[in-house]
């Protein structure tokens, strides 16, 4: 009690910002006692989320998603490939998540962020295993040509909730994707004819848990990477319930964005 008493005495004298930097755990604990976050959000509520489709004009499908300050830009470019023998009537999707140096002070040009390949793998697993994309729709000429969809997601501003924002941007980009009409020319080539949690909180947390649900609220993936905290059933069920609520919010945001696009 002695040491916490000492920090308690100091807290009366120093400014909020200094206290936040020096004693981050106690700062968040004081807020949790009131069931509120530092920016006055209640614990169950997510930050302002926006989705904009068609952010990149040169891509076949694109979207920009923002959760609070975290900004993700996703774009899909379609190229033609020869499908491998064992899946000759299916196309393919290549998912890449990038964290360029602009997004965060911890990323340097020679030293990529540790979290980038983790989020990249989580994303590919979630997208491919959810069956969201029918690979057979990406086939052009069975055995000879199929679409390879290169999905690139760039983080433009990293402020926590990276996986959430990236997944939202990826799903929105796929919903915006329009496969161009193509024909095969004489050489056999295909040608186009004359379409929450904020960063600071996450560094203090010991064990993040990520839950992915599809639009009918079935569980797609549950990710809990080790950590000193054991997951009791009740805690996992609370996470799933929160996710279910968030799915409804996100569906509304996505369908609003899509219907805005159609009006134009």
């Amino acid at each position, binding site marked *: 009690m002695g040491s916490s008493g000492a920090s308690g005495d100091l807290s009366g004298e120093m400014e909020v910002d200094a206290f936040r930097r020096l004693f981050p755990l106690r700062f968040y604990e004081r807020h949790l006692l009131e069931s509120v976050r530092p920016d006055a959000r209640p614990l169950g509520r997510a930050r302002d989320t926006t989705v904009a489709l068609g952010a990149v004009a040169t891509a076949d499908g694109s979207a920009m998603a923002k959760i609070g300050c975290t900004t993700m830009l996703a774009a899909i470019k379609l190229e033609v490939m020869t499908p491998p023998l064992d899946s000759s009537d299916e196309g393919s999707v290549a998912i890449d998540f990038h964290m360029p140096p602009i997004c965060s002070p911890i990323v340097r040009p020679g030293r990529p962020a540790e979290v980038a390949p983790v989020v990249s793998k989580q994303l*590919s697993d979630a997208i491919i295993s959810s069956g969201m994309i029918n690979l057979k729709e990406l086939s052009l000429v069975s055995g000879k040509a199929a679409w390879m969809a*290169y999905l690139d997601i760039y983080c433009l501003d990293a402020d926590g909730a990276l996986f959430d924002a990236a997944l939202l941007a990826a799903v929105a980009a796929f919903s915006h994707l329009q496969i161009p009409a193509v024909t095969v020319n004489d050489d056999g080539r295909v040608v186009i004819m004359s379409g929450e949690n904020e960063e600071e909180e996450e560094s203090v947390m010991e064990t993040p848990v990520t839950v992915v649900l599809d639009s009918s609220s079935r569980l797609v993936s549950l990710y809990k990477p080790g950590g000193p905290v054991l997951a009791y059933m009740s805690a996992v069920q609370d996470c799933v319930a929160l996710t279910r609520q968030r799915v409804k919010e996100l569906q509304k945001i996505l369908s609003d964005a899509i219907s805005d696009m159609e009006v134009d």
Partner: protein
Amino acid sequence: MSGKTATAPTTYSPSPTQKKRQPIFKDVDWIRPDGRGFHQCRPAFLRTGAVNAAAGSAYAEFGNTKVIVSVFGPRESKKAMMYSDIGRLNCNVSYTTFATPVRGQGSDHKEFSSMLHKALEGAIILESFPKTTVDVFALVLESGGSDLPVVISCASLALADAGIMMYDLVTSVSVAVELCLDACSKLGDVMRSCLKEAASASQE
């Protein structure tokens, strides 16, 4: 990736190949493909404070060329081992894979980082941050031509947003002949008014 293929398959883009380039500069009244006259610049959009995580940042859109620049610092750098009584500037320019019409062409511009460095180092008062480093990182979201000048102007604005002391703003324009000085001074005025707007908005 699904792990079905051991190596990535080669792919090609189905877009029609570019037609042979017409000779330009036939006469002074020549109209460009996007409807601009010989002397006209593209419409420009500049905004500071694009990236929350950075000390200073700016977003620039000149026609179809879209660039974000973040400035971090002055901060400690592991690379600089020796004491130095002037600061260091570190620049990096990178492209997104979808910036160019053909995927992956942006890696042809590796020299842009050092050209950005040469453009900015003369204007920054390096003595104001000894021992430390200022990092300037640029990401080209869409390449619509004249990329390096847009990156330089945007970087200059981002440095101002970060509060790094400079002798003056650096503007850059790519032009055919003698119009450089006029165009640069016009762009400088636009950038100054953007900064004034940002400063007065933050005071309210």
